[in-house]
C-alpha cells in the first residue's frame, strides 16, 4: 500500500463498562479513498467509526485505550479539541437525522455555528453542498420547506450535504443506506464514489456488494478484532484468511 494514511487506529481497545468491544485494532485508512468496514452485526463497526470522531465521548461509562491518529496527530491529545476534531471528521448516520428545520437551515447549520452570518456566503455554500450531494435539482425551489417533507433517501442526501458544508477532511458513514430504498441507495453509492476525489471516506456497511462496489480498501472485523485488511479487490477475490472468505461468500453473518 503506497497511499498515505489519513486516519488510523493503533492498538485500539474500547469498552462499554466492562464489555470489551474493540480489541487491539490496528487499521489505517488511506487518504482520498474509500475504506469499507464489514463484519457481522455487533462486531463493533459502529463503535469503531464513532471513536474516529470521538462521538463515543458523550456515551457515559465508556473507556478507550490505544491511539487514533489524524494526519499523524493523536486525536486524544489535550491540544486537540473534540469540537474542532468533529469539524474535520464529519459523520453521516445510519438513520437519516435531519434537524426539524428548513432544508436551507439544515445545510447552513455547520457554517452558522462557526459564526458565518453573511447571507451570500451561506447561500453559496448551501448550493454547492446540495449539488455535491446530488440533491440540488430536487430541492432548489423548496429550500424553505421543512426537511421532514423530503423522502428518506432525500433526507439522507441532505444529511450528506449538511456534513459536506463544513468542508471536513474525513467523512464517516455508518450504514448510510440501511434505511433507504434501492434507488436512493444507488444514488448515495454513486455519491460516495465521487467524494473520494476530495475527501477521505470510511464507510461501515452490512452489505457485501456495496463494499465491493464503492470501496478501494476493505477491513473485515469479527468480535471486535480486525481479521483482515487489504484492497477491496484482493479481499473479495483472494482473501488470505479462511474466515474472511466464508463471511464474504455468505456462509455466516
Amino acid at each position, binding site marked *: 500500500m503506497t497511499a498515505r494514511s489519513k486516519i488510523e487506529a493503533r492498538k485500539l481497545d474500547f469498552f462499554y463498562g466492562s464489555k470489551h468491544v474493540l480489541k487491539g485494532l490496528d487499521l489505517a485508512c488511506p487518504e482520498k479513498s474509500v475504506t469499507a468496514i464489514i463484519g457481522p452485526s455487533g462486531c463493533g463497526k459502529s463503535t469503531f467509526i464513532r471513536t474516529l*470522531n470521538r*462521538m463515543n465521548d*458523550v456515551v*457515559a461509562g465508556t473507556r478507550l485505550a490505544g491511539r487514533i491518529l489524524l494526519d499523524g496527530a493523536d486525536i486524544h491529545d489535550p491540544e486537540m479539541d473534540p*469540537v*474542532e476534531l*468533529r*469539524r474535520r471528521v*464529519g*459523520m453521516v*448516520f445510519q*438513520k437519516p*437525522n*435531519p*434537524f*426539524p*428545520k428548513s432544508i436551507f437551515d439544515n445545510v447552513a*447549520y*455547520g457554517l*452558522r*455555528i*462557526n459564526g458565518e452570518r453573511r447571507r451570500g456566503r451561506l447561500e453559496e455554500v448551501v448550493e454547492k453542498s446540495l449539488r455535491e450531494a446530488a440533491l440540488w435539482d430536487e430541492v432548489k425551489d423548496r429550500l424553505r420547506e421543512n426537511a421532514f417533507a423530503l423522502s428518506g433517501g432525500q433526507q439522507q442526501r441532505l*444529511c450528506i450535504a*449538511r*456534513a459536506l458544508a*463544513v468542508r471536513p477532511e474525513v467523512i464517516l458513514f455508518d450504514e448510510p443506506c440501511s434505511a433507504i430504498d434501492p434507488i436512493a441507495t444507488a444514488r448515495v453509492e454513486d455519491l460516495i464514489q465521487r467524494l473520494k476525489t476530495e475527501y477521505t471516506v470510511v464507510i461501515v456497511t452490512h452489505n457485501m456488494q456495496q463494499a465491493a462496489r464503492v470501496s478501494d480498501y476493505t477491513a473485515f472485523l469479527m468480535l471486535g478484532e480486525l481479521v483482515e485488511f487489504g484492497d477491496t479487490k484482493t479481499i473479495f477475490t483472494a482473501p488470505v484468511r479462511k474466515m474472511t472468505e466464508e463471511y464474504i461468500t455468505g456462509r455466516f453473518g
Partner: protein
Amino acid sequence: MNKRALRNLKEKSVRTFFFLNGLLAVVVLAGIFLLLLVSAVPAFREIHLREFLFTKTWDPTSPLKETYGILGQIASSVLVTLGAMILAVPVGIGVAAYLSDVAHARVREIVKPAVEILAGIPSVVIGFLGIVLIGPALAKLFGLGHGLNGLNGSLLLAVMSLPTIISISEDSLSAVPPAYGEASLALGGSRWQTLVRVKLPAALSGIIAAVMLGMGRAVGETMTVLMATGNARAFPTGLMQSLRTMTSNIAIELGEVPYFTTHYYALFAIGLVLFIMTFLVNMVADIVLHKYQQRES
C-alpha cells in the same frame, strides 16, 4: 359462547366506567362555570360591565358612592404574575436544560424528586415565608417600611410555578430525539450550541406549554399573594407597591359580605373573570402541547 358473552360484558362495563369518569370531570367543570355564571349575573343589574371591567376604583362599601371597578385588581394579578414569570421562566428553563443535558444521572435522581416535592408545599407555608423571610429582606434591601408588596408576591409565585415549568420543560427536552443532538455534535457543534440551536427549538412547544401551565398556577394562586402582597386597594403602579389581586380580594371580602347583595354577586363576577382568564391560559397551553405531540408522532 357463554365465556365470550361474559368477556364482552366486562369490556363494556369497564369502558362505561371510564367514560363516566371522564364525563364526571366535564360535568363538574361545567357545573362550576354555571354556578359562577348564575351567581355573577345579578351583579350586572346594578353595575355596567364596562364600569366593572374598566374602572380603577373598588369601593363597594363607600357611604357616598359604591364603586365596583376591578381594573386595579386585574392589573395587580397581571403584574404579580408577569413578575413571577420573568423570574421563573429563565430559571425554570435553565434548570430543565441542566437536568436533561448536563447533570449526571445521580444528580438528576435527587433533584427531580426534590423539585416535585416543592410542588407539594402548601401555599400557606410559602406565604408564611413571604411574611417572615422575604418581606423583611425586601424592606431592608430597598429601604421600605415593610416588604409586603408585589415583588414579594412575584418571588413566591415564581417559586410555586417553578416545579411545573421545570418538570414539563425537562420532559419535553428529554423527548427530543438523541439523533438531533448527535447530528449537531458531529458537525462540530459545542454542547451549548447544540442545546440552544437544536434541542431548545425542538422542545419549544413543550416549553411554551410548561410556561403557560406555570402561569395558570400563578394567576389563580390565592393564599400566598393574600399573605405576601399587602392587599392595598390603590391602583398598582409598580411591583414595589402593596397591591390586591383578584384572588386576594375575593378571599378577603367573601367571608364578610352580606349575602345576595350586589357586592356579593360582584365577587362572583370577579371569580368568573378569573375563571375565564385561567381557562384561556390553560387552553392555549393545551393547544400548543397537542401540536407538539402531533409533530413528534
